[in-house]
């Protein structure tokens, strides 16, 4: 495969999102940090530390030959399952503490699942239209992993894991009816889980009747809407949010998008959405263009990860979905989620480079976009040498 430069739009989007993340984490957390930790910079420092680690990981992911993992992805999968087992069954908490190292088990597991699915699906495409020896093994691992996450308990992460897995299965040549029927089989237990844990039920109820529950579970989301709404078009100005003064809980983590809405207004929120749209479109275009099936599945998994987390997080903050604690990739404060977002970003950039030079024929919208870019790049290159000649 011939080498070419990385997709600059993707690269710029990632870095701009990280930059917005740094600024907004500081702005949203300063009051909280001073109140509870006596230091304005408490969260910013840690965020920068995670981001620093993330950039190293991004570089490593960018230079890691993932195609070498083909056929060996079961090893990381079992590692991921083992960690999940440790977190979900033994300690029953989301974070795993190994001496100085601590991380969220589900982030590691999700990475290994995407890797395993990509490897396995790309090798078994011929059997995937069959249920028993095609689709079922994949579903089994997916559900096993989701069950372990659920045991932590972390309902929303399990839900996201399943969504990403299903999307990866969906783009593989499996029969849709297999997926649908399997999905239907899971509806009753899912409802059971929701009904049996009161706080989940309450979130759903408060989502359906938001006005009834402004002090309880609906409070957070209502404050989030107040944040967005008071921002208006241009926002109240950077660092001048008043909602972050403990009116809006989780301002620097799950609800950071609301603070962006308040401080930077509609302009700011649309800009962030735009960046995620760019990542989604560029990711999809890589998936469409690549000839390597393993790369294609990985790309779909990673792109879905970014798009889904952004979508669900924003929908929660805007009361379009029930309240769950999911971070906004690159922007929400630190943690392993940020680290793995960086890893995914590194992978996506690597794949964009691998597929960059592939001859493209006009046809699909994606290829059109690609061609347009290609043409622009060429035209830019045409201009540039001239400059040099002068």
């Amino acid at each position, binding site marked *: 495969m011939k080498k070419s430069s990385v997709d600059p739009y993707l690269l710029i989007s990632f870095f701009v999102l990280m930059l917005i993340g740094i600024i907004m984490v500081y702005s949203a957390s300063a009051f909280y940090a001073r109140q509870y930790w006596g230091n304005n910079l408490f969260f910013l420092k840690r965020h920068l530390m995670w981001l620093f680690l993330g950039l190293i990981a991004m570089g490593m992911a960018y230079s890691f030959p993932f195609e070498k993992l083909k056929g060996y992805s079961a090893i990381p999968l079992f590692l991921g399952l083992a960690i999940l087992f440790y977190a979900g069954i033994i300690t029953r908490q989301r974070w795993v503490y190994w001496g100085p190292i601590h991380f969220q088990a589900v982030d590691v597991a999700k990475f290994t699942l995407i890797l395993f699915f990509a490897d396995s699906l790309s090798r078994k495409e011929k059997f995937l239209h069959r249920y028993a020896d095609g689709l079922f093994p994949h579903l089994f691992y997916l559900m096993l992993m989701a069950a372990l996450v659920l045991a932590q308990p972390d309902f929303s992460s399990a839900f996201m894991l399943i969504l990403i897995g299903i999307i990866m299965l969906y783009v593989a040549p499996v029969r849709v009816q297999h997926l649908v029927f399997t999905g239907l089989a899971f509806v009753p237990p899912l409802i059971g889980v929701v009904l049996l844990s009161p706080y989940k039920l309450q979130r759903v109820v408060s989502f359906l009747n938001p006005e009834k529950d402004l002090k309880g579970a609906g409070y957070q989301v209502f404050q989030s809407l107040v944040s967005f709404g008071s921002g*208006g078009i241009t926002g109240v100005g950077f660092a001048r949010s008043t*909602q972050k*003064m403990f*009116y809006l809980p989780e301002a620097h983590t799950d609800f950071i998008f609301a603070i962006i809405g308040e401080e930077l207004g509609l302009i700011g929120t649309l800009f962030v959405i735009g960046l995620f749209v760019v990542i989604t479109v560029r990711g*999809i275009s890589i998936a469409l263009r690549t*000839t390597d099936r393993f790369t294609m599945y990985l790309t779909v998994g990673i792109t879905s990860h970014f798009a889904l987390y952004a979508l669900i997080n924003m929908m929660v903050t*805007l009361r*379009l979905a029930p309240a769950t604690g999911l971070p906004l990739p690159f922007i929400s404060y630190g943690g392993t989620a940020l680290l793995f977002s960086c890893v995914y970003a590194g992978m996506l950039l690597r794949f964009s480079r691998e597929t960059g030079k592939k001859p493209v*024929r*006009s046809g699909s919208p994606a290829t059109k976009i690609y061609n347009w870019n290609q043409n622009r790049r060429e035209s830019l290159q045409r201009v540039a040498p001239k400059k040099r000649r002068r």
Partner: protein
Amino acid sequence: MFKKMQKQINRNRNRVPGGEVSSTRIMVLAIFFLVGFLLIGIKLFLVQVVEHTKYKNIARNHLEHQREIPAQRGTIWDRHHQTLAVDLIHFSLGVRPRLVQDVGKTARLLSRILDISYQKLLSRMKKQSPFVYVAHRLSPEKANEIRKLRLKGVVLEKRFSRYYPMKEIGAQVVGYCDFDNQAGAGLELKYDELLRGKPGKSIFLRDALGNQIPNLDFPTSDPINGMSLETTIDLVYQSILEEELKATVLSHKALSGSAVLLDPRTGEVLAMANYPGYDPNRYNQFPVDHYRNRAITDVYEPGSTFKMVTLAVALEAYALNLDKKIVNCENGKYRLGRKVISDHQPFKYLTARQAFERSSNIGIIKLAQKFSPLVFFRYARDFGFGTMTGIDLPAEASGILHTPDQYSKYSLSYMSIGYEVAATPLQIAAAYGAIANQGILMQPFVVRRILDDTGQPMKEQQPVIIRRVVKAETAEKMKEVLVGVVEHGTGHTAYLEGVKIAGKTGTAQKLDEATGSYTSNRHVAYFAGFFPADKPRFVLVVVVNSPRRGYYGSQVAAPAFKDIVERIIGLPGNSTPTEIEQAGVQWASTQQFLVPLEGMGIKTAQNILESRDLRYEIIGNGNIVYKQEPAAYSEVTEKTKVKLFTEGNVKSTGKRMPKLKGLTLREALQVLNTQDLTVKVEGSGIVYKQYPAPGTPISSKIEIKLVCKPS
């Protein structure tokens, strides 16, 4: 375009197995995601643009807070600026646990100043809530000490609470404020608007934890402290009245009692006492019944004390010659319709003067029989009966005085001896005041000056003349009669050597509300009068409700009246305001001066001294302070030791030997209240000799001997 897509897909299908499926499905996925982002964009537009104003206001409402800065409630003083009610400044100590830097150190430092254990403080400070109260009612000194420590997260809030240093004294007049500083009764309630002041306001921004957001200045308005009241009450007189009233009510096993002391020349209320009383500092521990200022809220039939109206009408409208008019008193029984009126003692023929002095019901009725009801009514109304006096206290009752059109055939007769009318003790005091004040009725009042919080007088109450009720000559004649009542009539039990007292007893049977008829076992004992009769300076009314040991006004109320007069007159220099003013003591500065304690009961004096943190020494074991060192109104400091000299035990029982001659043995024993007295009786029937002589102080140690013979 579809064809081109198909071509691309076909190409992919050729290249990789399953490729055809993937491309389509990836496109579906992409569209799914893009629609999602579009949806979010639309929602953002709705929230951030369409509903912007709504949410902006909500955010502002969350943020903006108004804090009330409490105003200090005005002080209530007696006429010499002795404090009756005052707002004390104290502090509440709160902690914001999250802002405390070193919990252990903070708790240790605070526990040293407060009387709270280190462990208790620590557990309070480790609470999860954003704000915890640690201590209330801290003195300003302690608050200052804490402030000096400059501890982070420790908040001091200024508060006010009402304090009544004189406790029970004057409680029903002063009233009380409940624990939320809301006025409940008395002057506190009547002048609430003035006393309360106006709280200040400050608007500030606050985060959700209640922290004030710095650097955001908002307009504030300062609190306006309440006005202070200088009352006409004299603490010494007030305590004398309360002590004597209490002793009387208790010794006669009465339900309740009231006493009113007015200055007849001005209408100033010098003292107004009621028993049972209450301590406004812990008002909630007393029955609500005790808060009532019975002297103005409770109406009784005035009985014989009302006969002075009859006397006034007879003298002025019917030109009665007191000594020439002879009335037939029918030997004590007189039929009036279906009822028989009786006298407490059978009389045959009496002059009009004698009829008043001996309080013969039959004689008075006969005098009144030729009256025009309208004239009688007008005089009664002019004396203030049936109308509120207009005193500046809440819940005053107007009493009952029927108009002539409501009279039955015998109404005038009954009214002439004080039945079918009802009056408050204050109304009677005011009416007797009119006689003392040469026929001019004054309006009683309690607050004579209203001062702002700097001590600047804002309003001064001048005496208000209501009307001239009788001519000065008539008033003079009435005075003579009333002096006669005390000197050789039914009021002789109020007789005091050296003081000319004018007064009238009264005994009214109480109307049983259930049956509507008069009961023979429930009475109201009255004594109303003024002194010194030549130049009256005090009007005093004593009312004892339902006494169970003796019931005549002459037995129950008159001795109490006399005891009060004795103590008031006996006061050194009789500390009237004029004399103090002459001494050059200014009202506002008297607080650094010693209170006049002479004449007070020892317990009252002790209370006052203790409330002022003055040390004292009691010399003698009497009940009443007759001398104090240093003298009243001399300057005192914390180091001064006040010496209180108390009288011997003379007044301890408050009893003197009554005049028993002429009474039946049973009546005599009833009057004596034999419980703690040893009485030796010789013979039976009517008492004709008694040892010791009337007026001698008696106690359990003295043997009383009554010699009787059959009538």
